[in-house]
C-alpha cells in the first residue's frame, strides 16, 4: 500500500495558490490516486497567510496536513515558508519563491521581516530549494504566473512526464493564457 504523500502550498492570500492546487488535483487524478485537496476561503484570502493541502495515495483520510507530515512545502513567499517549517516531515523539502511581501505588522513598523530566511532554513538542516520565481513569471509574460513557475519547479520531484503536466495545465487555465503558462511551467521546471 502506498503511503500518503503530502504537499503544502503556502503563500499570501490572492497569490494564486488555488490554481496550483487545482492543477495538482487534475494531474493526480489521471493516475487514479485517492486525493484530498483542502483550501482556505473567506477572510484569510484578503492578504492573510494562506495554506492549501494536497494529499494523495491509495486511501487518504484527513483533508489536512499536520506538523511533521509534509513531503513538500511549496511557498509563494519567503516568510510564509519560514512560518510552516514545523509541518515538514524529516527528509521533506521546501521549494520557495524568494519574493518578500511585507505583512502589515512589518509595514507599520510593529515587527521586522527576518533577514536571510533561506539561509536560516538551510542552516537548520532543512532541504531548501530557493529561487526567484517572480522574475521567471514576469519573463513568461505575467507576474501572476508565479504559481505555474512553482509547479514547474516542483514537477522535477515527480515521475509525471512534462506532457502530463502540460495536459493538466491546459485543463486548468483559460485558453488565452495557455501559452504564457506553458512558458512559465517550462521556466520553472528548468530553473
Amino acid at each position, binding site marked *: 500500500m502506498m503511503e500518503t504523500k503530502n504537499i503544502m502550498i503556502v503563500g*499570501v*492570500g*490572492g497569490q494564486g495558490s488555488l490554481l496550483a492546487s487545482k492543477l495538482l*488535483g*487534475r494531474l493526480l*487524478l489521471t493516475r487514479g490516486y485517492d*486525493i*484530498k*485537496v*483542502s*483550501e482556505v*476561503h*473567506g*477572510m*484569510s*484570502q*484578503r*492578504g*492573510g*497567510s494562506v495554506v492549501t*493541502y494536497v494529499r494523495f495515495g491509495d486511501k*487518504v*483520510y*484527513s*483533508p*489536512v496536513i*499536520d*506538523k*511533521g*507530515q*509534509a513531503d513538500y512545502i511549496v511557498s509563494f513567499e519567503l*516568510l510564509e515558508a*519560514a*512560518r510552516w*517549517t*514545523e509541518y*515538514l*516531515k*524529516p527528509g*521533506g523539502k521546501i521549494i520557495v519563491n524568494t519574493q518578500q511581501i*511585507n*505583512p*502589515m*505588522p*512589518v*509595514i*507599520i*513598523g*510593529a*515587527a*521586522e*521581516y*527576518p533577514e536571510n*530566511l533561506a539561509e*536560516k*532554513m538551510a542552516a*537548520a*538542516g*532543512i532541504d531548501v530549494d530557493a529561487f526567484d520565481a517572480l522574475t521567471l513569471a514576469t519573463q513568461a509574460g505575467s*507576474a501572476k504566473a508565479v504559481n505555474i513557475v512553482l509547479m514547474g519547479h516542483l514537477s522535477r520531484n515527480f515521475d509525471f512526464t512534462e506532457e502530463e503536466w502540460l495536459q493538466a495545465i491546459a485543463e486548468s487555465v483559460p485558453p488565452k493564457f495557455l501559452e504564457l503558462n506553458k512558458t512559465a511551467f517550462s521556466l520553472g521546471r528548468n530553473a
Partner: protein
Amino acid sequence: MKQLMLGNEAVARGLYEAGCSFVSSYPGTPSTEITEAIAKYPEVYAEWAPNEKVALEAAFGASLAGRRAFCGMKHVGLNVAADPLFTISYTGVNAGLIIGVADDAGMHSSQNEQDSRHYARAAKIPMLEPADSAEAIAFAKLAYEISEKFDTPVLLKMCTRVSHSQSVVEPGARVEVLGEYKKDIAKYVMMPGNAKRRHPVVEARTRDLVAYAETAEINRIEDGEDKSIGIITSSTSYQYVKEVVGNRYPVMKLGMIWPMPEQKIKDFAASVEKLVVVEELDSFIECHCRDLQIPCVGKEWFSCIDELSQNKVAQQLAETPVSGVKLDAQIPPRPPVMCAGCPHRGLFYTLKKNKLTVLGDIGCYTLGAVAPLAAVDSVICMGASVSGIHGFSKSQNGAADGKTVAVIGDSTFMHSGITGLVNMAYNESNATVIIVDNSITGMTGHQQNPTTGVNLKGDPCTKIDLETLCRAVGIRRVRVVDPYNLAQCDEAIKEELAANEPSVIISRRPCALLKNVKHKAPLAVDADKCVGCKACMKIGCPAISIVDGKAKVDATQCVGCGVCEQLCKFGALKEV
C-alpha cells in the same frame, strides 16, 4: 466518471441529482459555494435571499408547494433562521426540505465557534453529517428521502474542512420530482390548537427516527483488532481518527448525528473496554452517551476549542509524529488586511481622525478594527451596528451625540440593518449610520445582493435604492459620499454628527477587486519630495512601505485610489 469535487459543490450535486428545484440561501463562509454551484444547473431555480430567515421561509414555501427545496447558510445564519426552523419542525414538509448549515471550527472566517448540532436536538430535526465529498452527494440525496418519509425538514451539517476540501466523487443522473400542493390547515397553520396536536407528532417522529438510526447504513461500525478502545465519531473527526488508528480500534461512524441510535451505541459500548468519543467543538455525542448511562471519555481528551487534527487525535490514541524544525527567528504574523484600493480605507481613516466611537458589523470592513486604522469599537453579528448605536446613543441622554457612528455594508444592511434603522427613526435616536456600499457582498467572495441590480444567476433584476429605502423608513437626512475623497467624507461626517436627528451616510464606491472596476495607474513616490514623515502609513495600505526612510509604492498592488496622495503634505505621491 471520477472527478475531484469541493465538498460544497458535492452537496449541490447531490441536491441536483435528487431533483431539488428550488434553492434560497444567504452567503456565508464556509457554506457559500453550495448555492453558487447549484445556480449553475439550469433545472434548478436558485436565489440569494436578503437573509437566512427569509431564505428558509422561501424554501419552506417551495416545499409546501410540492417542490424539493434547499436553504443554505453558515452556522450563525442558523440563528437568524431559527424562528421558522423550530416551527417548520412541527408542520413537517410537503416535498423534501433540506437546510444546509456549515460550521466553522477554528473560526477561519467567523465571529464565534458555535456548534450547530445543538439546533438539531433543540428543534427536534434530524441532522446528517457527511465526512467527504462523496458522502456529501449521497447524504444530500438521502436527506430528501428521510425528509419525505418522516415528514420533517432535514439539517445537512457541513464544516469548513468538509465544505472546503476536494475529494473524489462519481456524479450520477438527475431524477425529476414534482409533488402537488394539498391544503391541510391542521398541519400547516400553527396556531395553538393545531400546534398542540402537532407536538406529539414531532415526538413520535423522533422515536421513529431513532429506530431508523439503529439500522441506517450511514451509522456504521468499522471493526478493529484491539477492543481495549472503541471510538464513536463523525464528520471530519472520523477522518482524523481513521488516519491515526487505521483498523486498530473499532470505530462507530455516525452519518446521522441526530437523533442518535440508542441500542446500537449501547451494544458498541459493551463490545469494547473503553468508549472514546472523538468530536469537534461541544460534547454532543458524549452527552448523549452519558444520557444513556454509558461511561465514556470525550472532552477531557479532545478540547471543545478549535478544530481537531490528526496530531491532536494521535496525542491521545497513538504516537504524535515528530514535528519539523521550528526556525529560531521571530516570524511576524500575517493577518488579513483591507486590499490596496479598498474603498473602506478612506472612510475608516476619517472616522479615526475624528476620534469617533464606531460600532461595526460583519464583512470585509470588520478589518477597520485592525491596526493601524483600529477604528472599530465593537463587532457582534449581522446588523448589530445599527441596533447597537441606537442603544448606545439613547442610553447616554445626548452625551454620546456627535461622537458615535455605526458602520455597516450594503449586503449586511439589507440582511438585518433595516429593522435597526426603523427603530432609530421610530424611537428617535440622534445617531449616524454609515452604509459602506461597495456594490457587492465582498468577504464571502463577491455575491450579488438586493442593492446590486443583478441576481444569483447573473441576470439583471430590480435594484433596491438605498437612499429611497432609508428615507422611506423615516430618516430625513440621507447623503452619499465617495470614500476616495477624504475631504468630502470628513465634511459629511462632521455635518451629520452635528445634526439633531438620525442620519445615514452612504459611502459609495465599488469593491476594488470587482472585474468591471477600472483602476487608475499606480502612484509612485518622488524621493526628492518625500521627507519620510510616514503620514501615508496611517491608512494601513499594503501597497505602501518605508524603505531606507522614504515611502515606496508597490506598483503591482497599487490601483491609484489616491487616498495616500491626499495625506501627503509634500506632494511626494503622484501618478507616474
